[in-house]
């Protein structure tokens, strides 16, 4: 049984309320940080902990914080990115909905470290009811003196505001989020300047994921070095994984990054295997935008090692034979699912969510969707597969923000690993309407290392 840090108290009755949360040891980290540590010492603890951003990119949080420009007389901001819109990812929702005080607690400590007197939670528009939960939690915290002026007599002022988005995936991109927070159209900004230098209202800003900020609580409580002992290598601490798709027990799980992918899918403690005796065909291990992997490459890396649930192992093999930890949206696909249809669904999502600012993404995502629809409905031809490959290659890396990459990668990976299935859709257009390609050879043991 892996260690739990964030969800340890998740099942305590009424943990959502301040009284219960405080009784269970809540807000200890704020007391410790504000009374015994300086802001730089908090940052130092975060650096020691090796905490990596939980939003998808996995960038070391301590390093990100140390990039924050600190000019005199200019306010600095902490913005928590709660615009969790990636298909398959719902870990932050769980955290905010059931233990909102954990986020508030982490935010106070983080704001103290960064010197942010006004911190924001930018929450996804569709999470309307969570906004109320968070606002209630903030109000409770304020009444008990954890927010406001001169917190715990330390001279540090902090207030937290919740801002709801209007339902756009793109506003989860940090600069688009800042634009939206400023009340503008949610178009990503061109970097540089980075938010750490010029962010919200032109001031230095740190944008962190909900889970990252919540992880501050155990880091301060236990110390950065203790936190770093959990996990393996550079994947320290615990990670929330939102498992969904064809599994017996979908939900949010906290793992300590030392278990294997196979264990995560099949053990009863986690996903509990695949229902109705079906077989594992493919999996997207980190939310819709990371490359999909066939069963054989998912359980073992191209080198033949067991694939573990951590940043390095999931990325082993690069994009040729690996994937990414991403935001932890673990989507399992069984042998009754069609990869072409699945890829079409993702392409449709990205077309719908593209902001339309830069041309490759605006035009390319729609084009890919249409070609995939043709392939799926048996109207495609074999040159369409090469065309798709060419389009995704021209989108990837040529756009302002990572949405272009996020739209290109799933298509690229699907063609890379499931080309047979695409070709079968072309060669058997009528049959493809009636049945699925099935498992085929996607779970066969790898004979030779994939180049």
């Amino acid at each position: 049984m892996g260690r739990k840090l964030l969800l340890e108290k998740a099942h305590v009755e009424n943990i959502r309320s301040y009284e219960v949360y405080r009784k269970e040891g809540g807000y200890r980290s704020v007391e410790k940080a504000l009374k015994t540590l300086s802001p730089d010492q908090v940052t130092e603890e975060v650096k020691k902990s090796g905490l990596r951003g939980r939003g998808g990119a996995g960038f070391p949080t301590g390093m990100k914080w140390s990039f924050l420009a600190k000019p005199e007389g200019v306010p600095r901001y902490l913005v928590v990115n709660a615009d969790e819109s990636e298909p398959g990812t719902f870990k932050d929702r769980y955290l905010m909905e059931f233990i909102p005080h954990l986020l508030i607690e982490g935010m106070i400590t983080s704001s103290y470290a960064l010197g942010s007197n006004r911190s924001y939670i930018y929450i996804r528009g569709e999470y309307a009811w969570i906004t109320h939960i968070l606002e209630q939690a903030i109000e409770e915290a304020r009444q008990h003196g954890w927010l406001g002026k001169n917190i715990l007599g330390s001279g540090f002022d902090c207030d937290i505001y919740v801002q709801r988005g209007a339902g756009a995936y793109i506003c989860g991109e940090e600069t688009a989020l800042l634009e939206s927070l400023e009340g503008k159209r949610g178009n990503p900004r061109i970097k540089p300047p980075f938010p750490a230098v010029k962010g919200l209202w032109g001031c230095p800003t740190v944008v962190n994921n909900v889970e990252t900020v919540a992880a501050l609580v155990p880091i301060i409580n236990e110390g950065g070095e203790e936190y770093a002992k959990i996990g393996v290598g550079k994947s320290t601490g615990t990670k929330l994984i939102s498992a969904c798709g064809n599994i017996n027990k979908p939900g949010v799980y906290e793992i300590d990054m030392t278990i294997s992918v196979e264990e995560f899918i099949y053990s009863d403690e986690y996903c509990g295997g695949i229902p109705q005796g079906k077989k594992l065909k493919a999996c997207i291990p980190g939310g819709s935008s990371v490359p999909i992997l066939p069963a054989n490459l998912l359980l073992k890396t191209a080198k033949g090692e067991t694939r573990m649930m951590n940043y390095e192992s999931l990325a082993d093999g690069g994009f040729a034979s690996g994937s990414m930890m991403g935001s932890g949206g673990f989507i399992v696909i069984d042998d009754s699912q069609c990869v072409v249809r699945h890829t079409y669904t993702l392409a449709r999502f990205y077309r719908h969510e593209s902001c339309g600012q830069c041309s490759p993404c605006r035009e390319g995502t729609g084009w890919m969707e249409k070609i995939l629809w043709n392939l799926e409905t048996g109207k495609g031809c074999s040159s369409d597969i090469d065309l798709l490959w060419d389009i995704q290659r021209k989108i990837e890396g040529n756009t302002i923000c990572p949405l272009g990459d996020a739209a290109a990668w799933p298509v690229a990976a699907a063609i890379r690993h499931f080309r047979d299935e695409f070709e079968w859709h072309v060669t058997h257009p009528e049959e493809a309407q009636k049945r699925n390609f099935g498992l085929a050879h996607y779970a066969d043991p790898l004979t030779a290392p994939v180049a």
Partner: protein
Amino acid sequence: MADEIKKAPAPLKVTIDNITVEVPAGTTILNAARQIGGDVTPPAMCYYSKLEGSGGKCRTCLVEVAAGSAADPRPMPKLVASCRTTVMDGMVVKNITSERVQEARAGVVEFLLLNHPLDCPVCDQAGECHLQDLGYEHGKEGTRYQFDRRTFEKEDIGPTIQLHMNRCILCYRCTYVADQLTDNRVHGVLDRGDHANISTHISKAIDNNFSGNMIDVCPVGALTDKTFRFKNRVWFTKPVDAHRDCPDCCGKVTLWQRGDEVLRVTARKDEWGEVQSYEGKPGWICNTCRFEKKAATDWVIEGPTSINRHSVISQGHYLGLQKPKETIQEVMGGLNPRLLMDIHDVSEVNKLELSQLPGAATSANYKNESTKSE
């Protein structure tokens, strides 16, 4: 004095396609390339040097940075938008010498043309359209797109400006014009993704004295002049520099004439298709000059405009026109042909005296003659 020294730091050296230039700090790669000029300059569809904050959107100006700077010579992993990337000392940039750039740019051109209606034959912008030039220079022939093009409902945005949303490439230039030239922007980009469109909120007329500059900055035919609509093709009109005393603007314009008639008035443009600057200020013109002064007598005419833009409109050689001094006889080496079909010297026609042809010269026996002589 001390302030002046601070303001002028040492110039930075940047090498673009093996050509090294020195530019002041803060210059973008695109502007450094414009100093060199010629093929080395990346095309720009959305960047407009006179509009603050423009650029970075169309991705046609992508270049490869082979070395970031002298201090840190690592290459940048991705292609960068040259219009928004500032140069560092010792930076090495590849534009036309990079295959990656050429391929990515051809890809961007293809993307831009996917949903473009290609109605150039009826488009008033044809001839001075940046997208035409871009497609001609960097695009590939043919398209691989086999679906219906995206279309928009027509929208009336006032009596002087025609909006053709289908042609728009969403460069955002017109929104910057409205932001930076006028008090109150009433139009902008609505919706998102491939159905994002320029529109007013909601169906308002764009009514202010500098709105006409949106036409000048539009790189395509999405915003055109209603007073010039379908009047003429731009390459048939004669551009003439003119000015008048205008209380609102600089009053320096280009008249596009056919005979003595003034068909269209625009701001004067430089070789990048941007409005020219006078004493560091962009020469935007007001709507009175643009739409209401349509008689040659309203203007003091300065002379033909010199157009050095890389476009078909530069083909009207009204400047530096030289009348031939030689007679036909001199040019033709003593021959004095009766039939002046083609004075090109490889043409066989002019080497013959018609009277020397056996019988009446027809196309049939003329052909026989020439094949025999070969």
